[in-house]
Protein backbone atom coordinates (compact mmCIF):
# COMPACT_ATOMS: atom_id res chain seq x y z
CA UNK A 1 0.00 0.00 0.00
CA UNK A 2 1.20 3.48 -0.75
CA UNK A 3 2.39 5.07 2.45
CA UNK A 4 0.77 8.41 1.58
CA UNK A 5 -2.78 7.05 1.45
CA UNK A 6 -2.14 5.00 4.58
CA UNK A 7 -0.96 8.09 6.46
CA UNK A 8 -3.92 10.09 5.23
CA UNK A 9 -6.49 7.44 6.23
CA UNK A 10 -4.99 7.17 9.72
CA UNK A 11 -5.32 10.95 10.12
CA UNK A 12 -8.91 10.83 8.91
CA UNK A 13 -9.66 7.98 11.30
CA UNK A 14 -8.35 9.94 14.27
CA UNK A 15 -10.18 13.13 13.25
CA UNK A 16 -13.46 11.22 12.80
CA UNK A 17 -13.24 9.79 16.31
CA UNK A 18 -12.59 13.24 17.70
CA UNK A 19 -15.53 14.83 15.80
CA UNK A 20 -18.06 12.09 16.59
CA UNK A 21 -20.33 14.33 18.66
CA UNK A 22 -20.61 17.02 15.98
CA UNK A 23 -22.39 14.93 13.35
CA UNK A 24 -25.61 13.40 14.66
CA UNK A 25 -26.65 11.72 11.38
CA UNK A 26 -23.46 9.72 11.01
CA UNK A 27 -23.69 6.88 13.52
CA UNK A 28 -20.49 5.23 12.42
CA UNK A 29 -17.59 5.75 10.00
CA UNK A 30 -14.66 3.38 10.35
CA UNK A 31 -12.52 0.79 8.58
CA UNK A 32 -14.28 -2.59 8.42
CA UNK A 33 -11.10 -4.23 9.67
CA UNK A 34 -8.42 -2.37 11.61
CA UNK A 35 -5.64 -3.62 9.34
CA UNK A 36 -7.25 -2.52 6.05
CA UNK A 37 -7.53 1.26 5.89
CA UNK A 38 -8.75 1.14 2.26
CA UNK A 39 -12.12 -0.44 3.01
CA UNK A 40 -14.53 1.42 5.26
CA UNK A 41 -18.17 1.33 6.28
CA UNK A 42 -20.51 4.02 7.47
CA UNK A 43 -24.00 4.09 8.93
CA UNK A 44 -26.24 7.06 8.15
CA UNK A 45 -29.29 7.76 10.26
CA UNK A 46 -32.48 8.97 8.61
CA UNK A 47 -33.21 12.48 9.84
CA UNK A 48 -36.17 13.10 12.11
CA UNK A 49 -39.26 14.48 10.31
CA UNK A 50 -38.13 12.92 7.03
CA UNK A 51 -39.49 9.80 5.40
CA UNK A 52 -36.21 8.11 6.30
CA UNK A 53 -36.74 8.65 10.03
CA UNK A 54 -35.89 5.58 12.08
CA UNK A 55 -33.80 4.08 9.29
CA UNK A 56 -30.13 3.06 9.56
CA UNK A 57 -28.41 2.97 6.21
CA UNK A 58 -25.11 1.21 5.75
CA UNK A 59 -22.56 2.44 3.21
CA UNK A 60 -19.64 0.52 1.75
CA UNK A 61 -16.59 2.70 1.02
CA UNK A 62 -13.61 1.62 -1.08
CA UNK A 63 -10.56 3.91 -1.11
CA UNK A 64 -8.29 3.83 -4.18
CA UNK A 65 -4.53 4.00 -3.51
CA UNK A 66 -4.54 7.31 -5.38
CA UNK A 67 -6.97 8.81 -2.83
CA UNK A 68 -7.58 11.72 -2.28
CA UNK A 69 -6.61 12.66 -5.81
CA UNK A 70 -9.18 10.08 -6.97
CA UNK A 71 -12.56 9.78 -5.28
CA UNK A 72 -13.60 6.90 -3.03
CA UNK A 73 -16.23 4.47 -4.40
CA UNK A 74 -19.27 4.55 -2.16
CA UNK A 75 -22.50 2.59 -2.38
CA UNK A 76 -25.45 1.85 -0.15
CA UNK A 77 -25.44 -1.68 1.26
CA UNK A 78 -28.84 -1.23 2.89
CA UNK A 79 -31.61 -1.07 0.33
CA UNK A 80 -32.91 2.46 0.06
CA UNK A 81 -35.59 4.13 -2.01
CA UNK A 82 -34.12 7.38 -3.33
CA UNK A 83 -34.16 8.99 -6.80
CA UNK A 84 -30.34 9.16 -6.93
CA UNK A 85 -29.55 5.70 -5.59
CA UNK A 86 -29.81 2.53 -7.67
CA UNK A 87 -32.32 0.28 -5.91
CA UNK A 88 -30.49 -2.98 -6.70
CA UNK A 89 -26.78 -2.05 -6.65
CA UNK A 90 -26.80 0.85 -4.19
CA UNK A 91 -24.83 3.00 -6.64
CA UNK A 92 -25.05 6.71 -5.77
CA UNK A 93 -25.41 9.47 -8.34
CA UNK A 94 -23.81 12.48 -6.68
CA UNK A 95 -21.66 14.99 -8.59
CA UNK A 96 -18.95 15.17 -5.94
CA UNK A 97 -18.39 11.40 -6.20
CA UNK A 98 -17.97 11.69 -9.96
CA UNK A 99 -17.13 14.70 -12.13
CA UNK A 100 -16.93 17.21 -9.31
CA UNK A 101 -14.74 15.27 -6.93
CA UNK A 102 -11.86 17.32 -5.57
CA UNK A 103 -9.14 16.32 -3.12
CA UNK A 104 -10.43 18.99 -0.76
CA UNK A 105 -13.06 16.50 0.46
CA UNK A 106 -12.61 14.05 3.32
CA UNK A 107 -14.54 10.81 3.96
CA UNK A 108 -16.39 12.54 6.73
CA UNK A 109 -17.46 15.53 4.63
CA UNK A 110 -18.50 13.19 1.80
CA UNK A 111 -20.66 11.13 4.16
CA UNK A 112 -22.30 14.31 5.42
CA UNK A 113 -22.97 15.28 1.79
CA UNK A 114 -24.57 11.87 1.12
CA UNK A 115 -26.63 12.28 4.27
CA UNK A 116 -27.91 15.63 3.04
CA UNK A 117 -28.67 14.10 -0.38
CA UNK A 118 -31.27 11.94 1.38
CA UNK A 119 -33.45 14.93 2.15
CA UNK A 120 -32.42 16.94 -0.95
CA UNK A 121 -32.93 14.56 -3.88
CA UNK A 122 -32.14 15.58 -7.47
CA UNK A 123 -34.97 13.98 -9.48
CA UNK A 124 -33.49 15.38 -12.72
CA UNK A 125 -30.62 12.86 -12.69
CA UNK A 126 -32.31 9.69 -11.44
CA UNK A 127 -30.97 6.18 -10.87
CA UNK A 128 -34.34 5.14 -9.47
CA UNK A 129 -36.91 6.33 -12.01
CA UNK A 130 -39.98 5.24 -10.05
CA UNK A 131 -39.01 7.37 -7.07
CA UNK A 132 -37.93 10.26 -9.28
CA UNK A 133 -41.14 10.22 -11.33
CA UNK A 134 -43.29 10.54 -8.22
CA UNK A 135 -41.31 13.63 -7.23
CA UNK A 136 -41.29 15.06 -10.73
CA UNK A 137 -45.05 14.89 -11.02
CA UNK A 138 -45.40 16.48 -7.59
CA UNK A 139 -46.75 13.46 -5.74
CA UNK A 140 -44.88 14.16 -2.50
CA UNK A 141 -47.35 12.15 -0.44
CA UNK A 142 -46.91 9.11 -2.68
CA UNK A 143 -43.14 9.53 -2.65
CA UNK A 144 -42.99 9.81 1.14
CA UNK A 145 -45.12 6.74 1.71
CA UNK A 146 -43.01 4.71 -0.72
CA UNK A 147 -39.81 5.81 1.06
CA UNK A 148 -41.34 5.07 4.46
CA UNK A 149 -42.38 1.62 3.37
CA UNK A 150 -38.91 0.68 2.11
CA UNK A 151 -37.26 2.25 5.16
CA UNK A 152 -39.47 0.16 7.43
CA UNK A 153 -38.90 -2.93 5.30
CA UNK A 154 -35.12 -2.81 4.94
CA UNK A 155 -33.55 -0.21 7.23
CA UNK A 156 -35.07 -0.66 10.65
CA UNK A 157 -34.24 -4.29 11.44
CA UNK A 158 -31.35 -5.41 13.59
CA UNK A 159 -29.51 -7.21 10.84
CA UNK A 160 -27.99 -5.35 7.87
CA UNK A 161 -29.74 -6.27 4.65
CA UNK A 162 -27.29 -6.98 1.85
Amino acid at each position, binding site marked *: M*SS*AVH*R*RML*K*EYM*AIQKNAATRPHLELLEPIQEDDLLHWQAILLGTADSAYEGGRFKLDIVIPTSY*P*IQSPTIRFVTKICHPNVHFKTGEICLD*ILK*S*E*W*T*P*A*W*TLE*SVCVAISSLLTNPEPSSPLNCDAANLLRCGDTAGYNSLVKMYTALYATGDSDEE
Partner: protein
Amino acid sequence: MQAIKDEEANAHPLVDHSVDLLELAEEYENGSEAFKKKIQNLSDTHDRMRRSRGDGNCFYRAFAFAWFERVMLAIKSKPELHANAVRTIEETKDLLLAAQFELLAFEDFYQVTLETLQNLVHFTSEELLTAFQNDEISNSIVMHFRLVASAFLKTHQDDYAPFLEFGQTMDEFCSMHVEAMGRESEEMMLIALTKATHVSIEVAYLSGNQAADEVNFLPFLPDTAPYMPPLVLLYRPGHYDILYRKSHCLEGVI
Protein backbone atom coordinates in the same frame (compact mmCIF):
# COMPACT_ATOMS: atom_id res chain seq x y z
CA MET B 1 -10.45 8.14 -25.62
CA GLN B 2 -9.31 8.84 -22.06
CA ALA B 3 -7.33 5.59 -22.10
CA ILE B 4 -5.45 6.63 -25.24
CA LYS B 5 -4.73 9.99 -23.66
CA ASP B 6 -3.43 8.35 -20.47
CA GLU B 7 -1.21 5.93 -22.35
CA GLU B 8 0.25 8.77 -24.37
CA ALA B 9 0.89 10.77 -21.22
CA ASN B 10 2.50 7.87 -19.36
CA ALA B 11 5.08 7.44 -22.12
CA HIS B 12 6.72 10.71 -20.97
CA PRO B 13 8.22 11.53 -17.57
CA LEU B 14 6.26 14.01 -15.47
CA VAL B 15 9.11 16.48 -15.96
CA ASP B 16 11.84 15.68 -18.47
CA HIS B 17 15.53 16.57 -18.80
CA SER B 18 16.00 19.91 -20.53
CA VAL B 19 16.83 19.86 -24.24
CA ASP B 20 18.32 22.30 -26.72
CA LEU B 21 15.71 24.51 -28.35
CA LEU B 22 16.78 22.95 -31.67
CA GLU B 23 14.61 19.98 -30.69
CA LEU B 24 11.57 22.23 -30.73
CA ALA B 25 12.52 23.38 -34.23
CA GLU B 26 12.79 19.74 -35.32
CA GLU B 27 9.22 19.07 -34.18
CA TYR B 28 8.05 21.63 -36.72
CA GLU B 29 10.41 20.62 -39.55
CA ASN B 30 7.46 19.78 -41.75
CA GLY B 31 5.22 22.35 -40.16
CA SER B 32 4.10 25.76 -41.28
CA GLU B 33 6.46 28.63 -42.00
CA ALA B 34 4.78 30.65 -39.28
CA PHE B 35 5.95 28.19 -36.61
CA LYS B 36 9.46 27.94 -38.04
CA LYS B 37 9.99 31.68 -38.09
CA LYS B 38 8.71 32.09 -34.57
CA ILE B 39 10.93 29.35 -33.19
CA GLN B 40 13.88 30.83 -35.07
CA ASN B 41 13.23 34.18 -33.44
CA LEU B 42 12.63 32.58 -30.06
CA SER B 43 16.04 30.90 -30.23
CA ASP B 44 17.77 34.30 -30.43
CA THR B 45 16.87 34.89 -26.79
CA HIS B 46 16.19 31.37 -25.44
CA ASP B 47 18.41 28.33 -25.70
CA ARG B 48 16.77 25.42 -23.86
CA MET B 49 13.36 24.00 -23.00
CA ARG B 50 12.03 21.35 -20.61
CA ARG B 51 8.92 19.32 -21.28
CA SER B 52 6.19 18.84 -18.68
CA ARG B 53 3.89 15.84 -19.20
CA GLY B 54 0.69 16.63 -21.10
CA ASP B 55 -1.65 15.26 -18.44
CA GLY B 56 -3.66 18.40 -17.76
CA ASN B 57 -1.37 19.36 -14.87
CA CYS B 58 1.45 20.68 -17.06
CA PHE B 59 1.08 24.32 -16.05
CA TYR B 60 1.22 23.70 -12.30
CA ARG B 61 4.07 21.21 -12.62
CA ALA B 62 6.07 23.45 -14.95
CA PHE B 63 5.52 26.43 -12.67
CA ALA B 64 6.58 24.56 -9.53
CA PHE B 65 9.62 22.98 -11.14
CA ALA B 66 10.82 26.20 -12.76
CA TRP B 67 10.46 28.07 -9.48
CA PHE B 68 12.13 25.40 -7.30
CA GLU B 69 14.93 24.94 -9.83
CA ARG B 70 15.56 28.68 -9.92
CA VAL B 71 15.79 28.75 -6.11
CA MET B 72 18.07 25.70 -6.00
CA LEU B 73 20.51 27.02 -8.61
CA ALA B 74 20.86 30.27 -6.64
CA ILE B 75 21.10 28.64 -3.20
CA LYS B 76 24.66 29.93 -2.66
CA SER B 77 24.68 33.13 -4.70
CA LYS B 78 21.21 34.38 -3.67
CA PRO B 79 20.07 32.51 -0.56
CA GLU B 80 17.31 35.10 -0.06
CA LEU B 81 15.39 33.48 -2.95
CA HIS B 82 15.14 30.32 -0.87
CA ALA B 83 14.13 32.19 2.27
CA ASN B 84 11.46 34.06 0.29
CA ALA B 85 10.13 30.85 -1.23
CA VAL B 86 9.95 29.05 2.14
CA ARG B 87 8.15 32.00 3.70
CA THR B 88 5.74 32.17 0.75
CA ILE B 89 4.86 28.48 0.94
CA GLU B 90 4.41 28.72 4.72
CA GLU B 91 1.99 31.61 4.16
CA THR B 92 -0.08 29.53 1.74
CA LYS B 93 -1.26 27.51 4.75
CA ASP B 94 -3.01 30.62 6.11
CA LEU B 95 -4.45 31.37 2.68
CA LEU B 96 -5.93 27.86 2.43
CA LEU B 97 -7.40 28.09 5.93
CA ALA B 98 -8.86 31.51 5.09
CA ALA B 99 -10.53 29.93 2.04
CA GLN B 100 -12.18 27.35 4.36
CA PHE B 101 -10.13 24.35 3.28
CA GLU B 102 -9.84 21.69 5.98
CA LEU B 103 -6.32 21.32 7.34
CA LEU B 104 -6.76 17.55 7.23
CA ALA B 105 -7.55 17.70 3.53
CA PHE B 106 -4.52 19.76 2.47
CA GLU B 107 -1.76 19.27 5.03
CA ASP B 108 -0.14 16.24 3.35
CA PHE B 109 0.22 18.13 0.05
CA TYR B 110 1.45 21.19 1.92
CA GLN B 111 4.03 19.19 3.88
CA VAL B 112 5.45 17.49 0.80
CA THR B 113 5.72 20.84 -0.99
CA LEU B 114 7.40 22.53 1.96
CA GLU B 115 9.78 19.61 2.56
CA THR B 116 10.80 19.51 -1.09
CA LEU B 117 11.49 23.22 -0.95
CA GLN B 118 13.49 22.87 2.28
CA ASN B 119 15.50 20.03 0.72
CA LEU B 120 16.72 22.36 -2.03
CA VAL B 121 19.61 23.44 0.24
CA HIS B 122 21.29 20.08 -0.35
CA PHE B 123 19.61 18.87 -3.57
CA THR B 124 21.56 18.35 -6.78
CA SER B 125 19.85 19.11 -10.11
CA GLU B 126 19.50 15.36 -10.58
CA GLU B 127 17.79 14.93 -7.21
CA LEU B 128 15.33 17.74 -7.90
CA LEU B 129 14.41 16.15 -11.22
CA THR B 130 13.99 12.75 -9.54
CA ALA B 131 11.66 14.29 -6.95
CA PHE B 132 9.50 15.85 -9.68
CA GLN B 133 9.44 12.55 -11.59
CA ASN B 134 8.13 10.70 -8.53
CA ASP B 135 4.31 10.42 -8.79
CA GLU B 136 3.63 10.91 -5.13
CA ILE B 137 5.90 13.92 -4.58
CA SER B 138 5.19 15.55 -7.93
CA ASN B 139 1.41 15.17 -7.74
CA SER B 140 1.33 16.38 -4.14
CA ILE B 141 3.12 19.56 -5.22
CA VAL B 142 0.74 20.00 -8.17
CA MET B 143 -2.19 19.49 -5.83
CA HIS B 144 -0.88 22.04 -3.37
CA PHE B 145 -0.47 24.66 -6.08
CA ARG B 146 -3.96 23.88 -7.38
CA LEU B 147 -5.41 24.46 -3.92
CA VAL B 148 -3.40 27.67 -3.56
CA ALA B 149 -4.77 29.01 -6.88
CA SER B 150 -8.27 27.99 -5.81
CA ALA B 151 -7.90 29.59 -2.37
CA PHE B 152 -6.69 32.82 -3.93
CA LEU B 153 -9.69 32.97 -6.27
CA LYS B 154 -12.12 32.14 -3.47
CA THR B 155 -10.69 34.84 -1.21
CA HIS B 156 -10.76 37.42 -4.05
CA GLN B 157 -14.19 36.62 -5.45
CA ASP B 158 -15.12 40.25 -6.05
CA ASP B 159 -12.27 40.62 -8.53
CA TYR B 160 -12.66 37.33 -10.39
CA ALA B 161 -16.29 36.18 -10.19
CA PRO B 162 -17.30 38.61 -13.01
CA PHE B 163 -15.19 36.52 -15.42
CA LEU B 164 -17.08 33.30 -14.75
CA GLU B 165 -19.77 31.90 -17.00
CA PHE B 166 -23.21 33.20 -16.21
CA GLY B 167 -24.73 31.49 -13.21
CA GLN B 168 -21.56 29.71 -12.10
CA THR B 169 -20.34 30.34 -8.57
CA MET B 170 -16.66 30.68 -7.71
CA ASP B 171 -16.88 27.54 -5.56
CA GLU B 172 -18.26 25.54 -8.50
CA PHE B 173 -15.64 26.91 -10.86
CA CYS B 174 -12.83 26.12 -8.42
CA SER B 175 -13.92 22.57 -7.65
CA MET B 176 -14.47 21.70 -11.33
CA HIS B 177 -11.59 23.51 -12.99
CA VAL B 178 -8.94 24.35 -10.41
CA GLU B 179 -8.92 21.76 -7.64
CA ALA B 180 -9.61 18.63 -9.70
CA MET B 181 -6.41 16.93 -10.92
CA GLY B 182 -5.92 16.85 -14.67
CA ARG B 183 -8.06 19.89 -15.44
CA GLU B 184 -6.24 22.26 -17.75
CA SER B 185 -5.52 25.75 -16.56
CA GLU B 186 -6.72 29.02 -17.97
CA GLU B 187 -5.34 32.51 -17.60
CA MET B 188 -7.30 33.04 -14.40
CA MET B 189 -5.31 30.27 -12.68
CA LEU B 190 -2.02 31.78 -13.89
CA ILE B 191 -3.03 35.15 -12.50
CA ALA B 192 -4.10 33.60 -9.19
CA LEU B 193 -0.92 31.58 -8.71
CA THR B 194 1.31 34.51 -9.65
CA LYS B 195 -0.37 36.77 -7.14
CA ALA B 196 -0.56 34.15 -4.38
CA THR B 197 3.16 33.27 -4.65
CA HIS B 198 4.57 36.68 -5.68
CA VAL B 199 6.40 34.91 -8.51
CA SER B 200 6.11 36.48 -11.96
CA ILE B 201 5.70 34.46 -15.15
CA GLU B 202 6.15 35.25 -18.81
CA VAL B 203 4.31 33.02 -21.20
CA ALA B 204 5.59 32.67 -24.74
CA TYR B 205 2.60 31.97 -26.98
CA LEU B 206 3.64 29.83 -29.91
CA SER B 207 0.82 29.60 -32.43
CA GLY B 208 0.38 29.18 -36.16
CA ASN B 209 -0.82 32.77 -36.48
CA GLN B 210 0.53 33.94 -39.85
CA ALA B 211 0.34 37.62 -39.05
CA ALA B 212 3.43 37.76 -36.84
CA ASP B 213 6.97 36.37 -37.02
CA GLU B 214 7.63 36.92 -33.33
CA VAL B 215 6.43 34.81 -30.45
CA ASN B 216 4.09 36.86 -28.32
CA PHE B 217 5.11 37.14 -24.64
CA LEU B 218 2.39 37.68 -22.08
CA PRO B 219 3.52 38.74 -18.58
CA PHE B 220 1.73 37.68 -15.39
CA LEU B 221 2.78 39.95 -12.55
CA PRO B 222 2.25 39.80 -8.79
CA ASP B 223 0.96 42.86 -6.95
CA THR B 224 4.31 43.32 -5.23
CA ALA B 225 7.56 44.17 -7.06
CA PRO B 226 9.02 40.89 -8.40
CA TYR B 227 12.14 39.83 -6.50
CA MET B 228 13.54 37.64 -9.26
CA PRO B 229 13.32 37.54 -13.06
CA PRO B 230 10.11 35.91 -14.37
CA LEU B 231 9.78 32.18 -14.88
CA VAL B 232 9.41 31.63 -18.62
CA LEU B 233 6.88 29.12 -19.90
CA LEU B 234 6.24 28.06 -23.47
CA TYR B 235 2.57 27.76 -24.37
CA ARG B 236 1.26 25.86 -27.33
CA PRO B 237 -2.51 25.47 -27.55
CA GLY B 238 -3.45 23.23 -24.63
CA HIS B 239 0.05 22.72 -23.25
CA TYR B 240 2.78 24.38 -21.14
CA ASP B 241 6.53 23.61 -21.05
CA ILE B 242 9.47 25.45 -19.45
CA LEU B 243 11.75 27.78 -21.42
CA TYR B 244 15.26 28.94 -20.51
CA ARG B 245 16.12 32.53 -21.33
CA LYS B 246 19.75 33.22 -22.25
CA SER B 247 19.89 36.46 -20.27
CA HIS B 248 18.95 34.62 -17.05
CA CYS B 249 22.34 32.85 -17.26
CA LEU B 250 21.23 29.80 -15.26
CA GLU B 251 24.18 27.52 -14.49
CA GLY B 252 23.64 23.84 -13.75
CA VAL B 253 20.43 23.17 -15.69
CA ILE B 254 20.22 19.49 -16.61
